[in-house]
């Protein structure tokens, strides 16, 4: 039977029985989301690689302890990734707030340019980069709820399972995170500066 048609639990069971093909299938199915989460939280591809590898090493060692009645396997993996990312952030201090350009060499946004398709693309890319930088500039406990709910489109319940907190806490943190993000974007739009981004 093809591993593509097997559920996460079936793959996990086979994997714990020593089936490398099952492990590979499970890894390929779940690693993109884990990697993206780590990347969006840390802003560092190196950190995202390390976290992804560590998450699946833990799964190899602790997979027998996974209890499907307590949550889904993706939520389990996200929880492991979150713990590792937060440790990395604290250890390496990857969070670099968007600082003002002391030399004043940064461009100042002068408002929407002419409706040109190439310029639209440029502006769109700049906007995406602005959002990315602003997300990375949030405090970690606001950033993670924003990444899970708005970038990974998790429900409040799913995010609460990953974060180990109540649904109401997730909603209130998300509201606060979006408020801070909007403020940063407004500030950034007045004085565009990508120099503070870690990447």
């Amino acid at each position: 039977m093809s591993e593509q048609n097997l559920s996460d639990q079936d793959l996990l069971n086979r994997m714990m029985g020593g089936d490398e093909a099952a492990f590979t299938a499970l890894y390929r199915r779940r690693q993109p989301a884990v990697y993206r989460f780590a990347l969006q939280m840390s802003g560092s591809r190196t950190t995202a690689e390390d976290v992804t590898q560590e998450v699946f090493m833990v799964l190899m060692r602790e997979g027998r302890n996974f209890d499907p009645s307590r949550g889904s396997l993706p939520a389990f993996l996200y929880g492991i990734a979150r713990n590792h990312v937060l440790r990395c952030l604290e250890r390496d201090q990857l969070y670099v707030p968007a600082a003002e350009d002391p030399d004043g060499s940064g461009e100042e946004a002068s408002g929407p340019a002419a409706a040109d398709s190439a310029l639209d693309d440029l502006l769109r890319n700049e906007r995406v980069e602005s959002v990315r930088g602003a997300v990375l500039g949030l405090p970690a406990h606001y950033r993670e709820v924003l990444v899970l709910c708005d970038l990974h489109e998790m429900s409040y319940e799913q995010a609460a399972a990953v974060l180990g907190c109540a649904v109401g806490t997730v909603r209130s943190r998300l509201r606060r995170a979006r408020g801070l993000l909007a403020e940063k974007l407004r500030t950034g739009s007045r004085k565009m500066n990508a120099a503070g981004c870690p990447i």
Partner: protein
Amino acid sequence: MNCHSFSSMVMDLARGQLDGEARRQALAHAETCSKCAARLADERALTAGLRALAASQQAEQAPVRVEAALRLAFRRQAAPAAAPAVMRWSPRWRWALATVAALLLIGAVWVLKLRTPAPATAGRGPAAKPAALPAPQPAPVGTVILARPGLKAAPARTTARAQKRKRPPQAGAVRNGEERETEGGFLPLPYAPAWGSGESAMVVRGEMPRSALVSLGLPVNAARAAEPMKVDLVLGQDGVARAIRFVRESRR
């Protein structure tokens, strides 16, 4: 709906998480309140920006080297699982197994020796000297009772004499006071090797299915082939059976 309740649900409305009557009322309020409408527009713009960011990173994934490293680690982790099978046959286990086998062998020999006929207990008649088996020919009735090597010879008993007694004679192996009556003498087995010069013999009583007589070269009644039967076997020093005697149990 008022502005306060609208502000508590504007985030869900902008993220598409609000539906039904609540959504209808919130939209209706935004149409009547410019401040709330601006708030809703900001939230929708923020949501669009975040979705654009998510879309730009959708193709991001770990490089191939991460998978390679994990698969290598997986194989290493799985490899030691085969070792315990080898460890089970460590020298200590082998010694234990050999000891058990030796004890079983000693026990089997001891049980076999218990089944050999006891030396004479009735004290009747002169002790017969150990006699060699006759040549491979059907033995006459009432002859040939061999003593176990090293023991006093059992008295010669004949079937006829045994039949006269009220109590059956203790011929052959006597076990736990059972009374047996032998019938006939020892029959030499076909294809049995010849006796060696001075070779001693041992009589062993046992039970065997009648069908086993075929392997001894003797005829078998097919209708009774599965029935067990008690026999006395004369074994040479090489452990090979030379003769057989059929034991019939008597019941009072």
